[in-house]
């Protein structure tokens, strides 16, 4: 198993649209400062941003953990939200349960989860209705996908 070089945990406030995205910006700065390859950290921050927006839009609260090893960068996102009844459906491009308010923010067009998967080398999502959703995404340091 690869050695863990860095782990940072962040708290996400649900429904706080003004602050939505701040954590992802912070992650971008951390990875940039560490000298991580631009195409790699770009993929990480896109996954982080989509995940953060989902938590802000749907959940009461959540957390993002950023984990760096010598081989990859992982994001673990957990929320206390409504959960996703049908994950296969939620992963389809264009499928959305977003409200008008979410769409006014420029999100909720059914591209968030597919975008996260597309930018990850390994992606998994688990959800329990009424409890919340967990997402794990891994991006390899030497991947140029």
């Amino acid at each position, binding site marked *: 198993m690869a050695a863990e070089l860095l782990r940072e945990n962040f708290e996400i406030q649900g429904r706080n*649209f*003004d602050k*939505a*995205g701040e954590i*992802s*910006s912070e992650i*971008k700065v951390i990875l940039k400062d560490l000298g991580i390859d*631009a195409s790699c950290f*770009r993929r990480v*921050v*896109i996954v982080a*941003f*989509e995940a953060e*927006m989902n938590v802000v839009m749907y959940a009461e609260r959540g957390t993002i953990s950023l984990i760096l090893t010598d081989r990859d960068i992982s994001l673990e996102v957990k929320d206390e939200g409504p959960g996703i009844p049908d994950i296969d459906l939620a992963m389809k491009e264009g499928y959305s349960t977003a409200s008008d308010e979410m769409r*006014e*923010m*420029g*999100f909720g*067009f059914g*591209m*968030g989860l*597919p*975008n996260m998967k*597309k930018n990850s080398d390994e992606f998994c999502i688990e959800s329990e209705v009424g409890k919340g959703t967990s997402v794990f995404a891994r991006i390899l340091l030497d991947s140029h996908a």
Partner: protein
Amino acid sequence: MKLAEIKDLLKCEVLAGDEDLSTDITHVVASDGMSEILAFAKSSELMITGLTNIQSIRTADIAGVSAVIYCRGKRPDKKVIDFAKQKRIPVLATDMVMFDICGILYNKGLKGVS
């Protein structure tokens, strides 16, 4: 094409980054959906959008675009402009609609992203 030329072509007002219009633009990404910008932008594109809230600049920063042009006469709040200045992202605004902007830039040889 330089951002300064695009500014003249689209009759834009510069809201942020007046000193930084020498950027060379070759590709454009245009949408009101921020996930669409995030999905298609590769980096350094010009972003055209009608969404003027703080998330538009947040998306521009995360996607790594070179500049943002707000279309349809929309103008963002001061806090959005201040945020763009902080992120060093030039922001322009025009009264033109997105279809016309894309048509004009396409005719000038700029490319889309897919």
